[in-house]
């Protein structure tokens, strides 16, 4: 008992230390490294709390994809970091910000300490009805059957994010290849890494999606891993993304939400309502939605990581 307590204490301390340091970091690059470290420790903490699904998402999306996304933003901001330090907000604004943040923290802590016992939860209800979805993982069941609308909207948000990134492209570059125009890198170590890691990563990504029906995993985590592998090959100069004007690329981005909505509409004719599954085909339909979502999430994340087009086609 004391050993686990020690580990948990060390974890809690590490999470707090990483979070504090990320906020206090002077430069954006330091903050990003701190944020990645924070995500890593946090996913360990989630595992200790027994929520492997959340840990997996945190490791893939929080520490992996967001870290690299922020890193790209840091590189693009460049010298503007200095201006940010120079134009500090007024003292009153800073005090007010600190005060309201502290107020929020106190309110959250107070709520946590005064939770009912047992805490209000729909978990037993979800677990009891899990058999109806033929899924083994209650989290997937909730995300794709009972709260399918939330998942659908999350997938749509990614499409909107891609549109947002593309819309900041300069007029002349519209329709071009997304991302910086990169000279082919003659870095043997990087090329080797980009040739060895992606095959393994693709297998792991597909495994995460497939296993999501029975165990922690799912479209978002698997899609993130797949996207990371493609971006790795892109950074090594091995592959080039298709032009923004490519119709095929756009179809890939919207495929997941479209399939999801189509099956949802089908449900309103054959089953109880929008996003309800006909009882006999619940599991095949869920797997179909997961697969389509995975491709769209992966493509959308790649486009987000690569950035808007910079040069004319």
């Amino acid at each position: 008992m004391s050993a686990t307590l020690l580990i948990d204490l060390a974890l809690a301390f590490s999470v707090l230390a990483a979070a504090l340091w990320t906020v206090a970091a002077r430069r954006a690059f330091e903050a990003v490294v701190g944020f990645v470290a924070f995500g890593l420790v946090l996913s360990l903490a989630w595992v200790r709390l027994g929520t492997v699904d959340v840990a997996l998402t945190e490791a893939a999306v929080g520490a992996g994809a967001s870290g690299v996304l922020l890193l790209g933003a840091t590189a693009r901001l460049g010298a503007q970091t200095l201006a940010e330090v120079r134009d500090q907000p007024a003292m009153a604004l800073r005090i007010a910000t600190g005060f309201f943040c502290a107020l929020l923290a106190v309110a959250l802590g107070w709520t946590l300490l005064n939770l009912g016992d047992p805490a209000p939860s729909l978990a037993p209800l979800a677990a009891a009805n899990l058999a109806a979805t033929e899924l083994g993982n209650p989290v997937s069941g909730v995300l794709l059957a009972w709260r399918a609308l939330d998942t659908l909207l999350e997938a749509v948000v990614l499409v909107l994010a891609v549109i947002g990134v593309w819309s900041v492209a300069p007029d002349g570059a519209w329709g071009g290849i997304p991302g910086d125009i990169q000279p082919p890198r003659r870095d043997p170590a990087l090329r080797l890494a980009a040739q060895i890691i992606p095959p393994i990563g693709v297998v792991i990504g597909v495994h995460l999606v497939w296993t999501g029906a029975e165990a922690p995993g799912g479209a978002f985590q698997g899609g993130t891993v797949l996207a990371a592998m493609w971006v790795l090959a892109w950074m090594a100069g091995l592959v080039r993304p298709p032009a923004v004007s490519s119709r095929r690329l756009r179809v890939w981005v919207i495929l997941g939400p479209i399939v999801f909505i189509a099956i949802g509409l089908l449900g309103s004719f054959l089953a109880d309502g929008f996003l309800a599954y006909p009882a006999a085909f619940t599991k095949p339909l869920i797997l179909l939605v997961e697969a389509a979502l995975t491709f769209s999430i992966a493509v959308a994340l790649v486009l987000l990581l690569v950035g808007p087009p910079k040069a004319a086609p």
Partner: protein
Amino acid sequence: MLTVVAGLWRVLRGPTDADRMMAAQLLGTGGIAALLLLAAGMGNGAIVDAALSLSVLAAFASVAFALAVPGRRR
């Protein structure tokens, strides 16, 4: 677990960006080891999946860091 904490300390202190990056990698490796130990200790095979994805993404992040470190961009 101690490696993770020691690595965290290095991330926080590291005088140069390269130090921070290396420490972040050490942290990743230590985190994977900790996850595998936890998987065995808690008897939950799914944690291995988390360790797997972490290992792939740690390699990915290290490449991204290496390319982003100022002054090394070619």
